[in-house]
């Protein structure tokens, strides 16, 4: 074996981690909590504080908190004022999502599989809550079964991947069509949409519609044409320089003024427009980061092949650039999802707005903590799921590790 081969051999076998040292409980305590006197003090201080906080919180959650307020308003918090007799449409929407999630997890496994598992777990938890109605339980059980069936179908027929992708693409229009009715079913105005449903809808609409706008702004900012470049820079910096709440006020108060009397748009759509314009500026900056990470060679190679700039961008540059910034984009979406709670300030009844209405109801006096903690918990669960997905995607794509 000559030197060259030896080197290759070295490269092929990865360096093994040192064997795990097994230590006892006392050793572990000594090493992790009481290694020096400073550490001992730290442990005592942190221990006392966290013990007090934990003890009081658990006591409060189990004995003092009046959770009946959540039980009584559960439907309101989740779907708002949506009429009870039309609620089946919301359930159909959820079922469509379940089918798509089940199929995708069967076909691609990985991150989407984990997410589907978490969603199924969530269904189970809601199923076990003592106060949900029988109808809800039946729908949830149906949904769990559907996820299982579509998972099996997806696993055995991976040729369904195109259908599933088309399904995801069509999901938003179908959901909005179902919720609104549009003449086929009874019309349910957006003023009746609310609760967590509205939160999700605003976030998804903002994300979907800001994508094309964000890509154009990112390309515009790198354009060689000065007017387009300066317009993009101006737009991005203006939006990023002001708080979201002012943009929501612009959308609520000034949009009707600017569009004149001929164009009527309702509150919810105005908020969605505001969010889309806001998200696009931040998304553009993320995408620009991705574009900057593409090496010059890719541009030159595409030009050498004689591709024009549209083809070059759509098929060579953008796919690579977007792939590089997927984790950053997921991070942005978590932020947008959290920010949708701001619509409560401009008078929409998203989950937080409903919460605010509940505590002003004299029947539920003094239950602010319970209501807002529930709202916080809902956001916490969904944001954690998304950040988990983002971390997994990051390692799966190998971004930043090359």
């Amino acid at each position: 074996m000559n030197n060259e081969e030896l080197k290759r051999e070295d490269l092929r076998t990865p360096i093994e981690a040192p064997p795990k040292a097994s230590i006892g409980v006392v050793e572990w305590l000594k090493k992790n909590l009481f290694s020096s006197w400073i550490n001992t003090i730290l442990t005592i201080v942190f221990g006392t504080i966290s013990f007090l906080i934990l003890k009081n919180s658990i006591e409060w959650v189990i004995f003092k908190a009046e959770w009946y307020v959540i039980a009584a308003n559960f439907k309101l918090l989740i779907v708002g004022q949506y009429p009870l007799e039309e609620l089946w449409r919301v359930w159909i929407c959820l079922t469509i999502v379940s089918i798509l999630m089940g199929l995708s997890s069967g076909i691609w496994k990985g991150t989407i599989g984990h997410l589907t598992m978490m969603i199924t777990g969530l269904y189970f938890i809601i199923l076990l809550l003592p106060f949900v109605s029988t109808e809800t339980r039946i729908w949830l059980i149906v949904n769990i079964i559907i996820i299982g069936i579509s998972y099996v179908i997806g696993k055995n027929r991976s040729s369904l991947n195109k259908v599933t992708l088309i399904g995801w693409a069509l999901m938003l229009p179908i959901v909005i069509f179902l919720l609104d009715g549009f003449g086929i079913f009874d019309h349910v105005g957006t003023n009746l949409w609310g609760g967590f449903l509205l939160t999700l809808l605003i976030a998804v609409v903002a994300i979907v519609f800001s994508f094309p706008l964000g890509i154009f702004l990112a390309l515009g900012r790198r354009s060689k044409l000065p007017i387009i470049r300066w317009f993009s820079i101006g737009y991005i910096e203006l939006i990023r320089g002001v708080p979201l709440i002012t943009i929501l006020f612009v959308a609520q108060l000034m949009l009707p003024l600017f569009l004149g009397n001929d164009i009527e748009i309702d509150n919810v759509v105005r908020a969605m427009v505001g969010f889309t314009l806001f998200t696009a500026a931040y998304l553009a900056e993320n995408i620009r980061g991705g574009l900057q990470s593409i090496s010059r060679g890719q541009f030159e190679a595409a030009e050498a092949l004689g591709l024009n700039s549209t083809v070059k961008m759509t098929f060579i540059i953008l796919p690579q650039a977007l792939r590089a910034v997927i984790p950053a984009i997921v991070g942005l979406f978590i932020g947008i999802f959290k920010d949708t709670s701001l619509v409560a300030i401009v008078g929409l009844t998203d989950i937080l707005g409903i919460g605010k209405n509940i505590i002003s109801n004299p029947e539920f006096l003094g239950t602010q903590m319970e209501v807002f903690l529930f709202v916080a918990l809902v956001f916490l669960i969904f944001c954690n799921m998304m950040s988990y997905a983002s971390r997994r995607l990051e390692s799966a794509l190998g971004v930043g590790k090359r």
Partner: protein
Amino acid sequence: MNKQSSSTSTPFWRDKRIIPILIQIIFAVIVILAAVFLFTNALASLRQIGMTLGFDFLGKMASFDIGDKLIEFSSTDTYGRAFIVGILNTIKVAFIGIILATILGFIVGVSRLSTNWLARVVATVYVEIFRNTPLLVQIFIWFYAVFLGFPTIDKSLNAFGIFFFSNRGTVIPWFGVTPSSLIWLIFLVVGLVLSFILWKIRIKQQVETGKRKYPIYYAIGAMITTLVIAWIITLESPLSLSLPTFAGRGYDGGYTINPGFGALLVALVMYTASFIAEIVRGGILAVSKGQVEAAKALGLKGPTILRLVILPQAIRIIIPPLTSQYLNLIKNSSLAAAVAYQELVGVGITVLSQTGRSIEVISIVILTYLSMSLFTSLLMNIYNKYSQLVER
């Protein structure tokens, strides 16, 4: 010759020199047309409700009062002054918030990398909870459930007899100015300068001679000497302590923290600190392991390594994302509007509902935030340059 003839034969819509100009002209025309369309619509709708554009309303009397103010303001003052009060309140929240969030963020960020298991776990739980819930929900929890959840003023809770918590506000001990405060301030500055110079000189001597010169003791000594001289001259304490006392229907003395301000500040600090903690952690992790090992090999101790080896290198990585967190904090302070605290947006909403001048009010608000954002990024860029210069 050949070139020229070929260029004359290409039609202008395929000419590489003309297309970009054409595209830009078309784009500019579309943008201008859209702007004109929007603007004429706005003017038409304004005319319909009998209003014109203009900022003359700023000189009119504002018939509302502002609870928390840094400068004198009453309901007979103008709208313009109301805006200034609002801007000052925004700056107050942002300034205190940035300082506290930075301190808390650094502590949590360092704790996340601590060798102490408990500190690490507590810090991680803190970050995960506060980063993944919306700021507005946190503000609502602090405002409705905590600050407004305190008992009424006659039954207010108190801690150590000097902190009082009631649903009308939290009262804390505060300081009053005495006649000798100015003299004390002068001596304080002199003392600081003196001890700094002494410290530098002793450090230099220590480096040159290689012997211990105790620079830190000299600096503290100089400071104490100046302060003792100041006390001998004035024979008075620099500030008078104003303790709150319960007096019938309110409190005398102390400083009352308005519930809206309290909720906003606590929520902003806790929320932003969780992001700063992650930035600090990332910055520290980015310092290569060899640096720490080298410092250990030189015999430096844990805190010294952190202070002299890790943080100076980590700070360069930390500053750019930290800047954007500061900007976020300033922008997020606008959520005060939701808890009835009268800062810029809060004042803006009140003025807007009184005068109906949405375009003017919103443009004032937007321009103010833009200039504050630009100013902060300018400051942080200067500091960034300064900290980068330390490199070769």
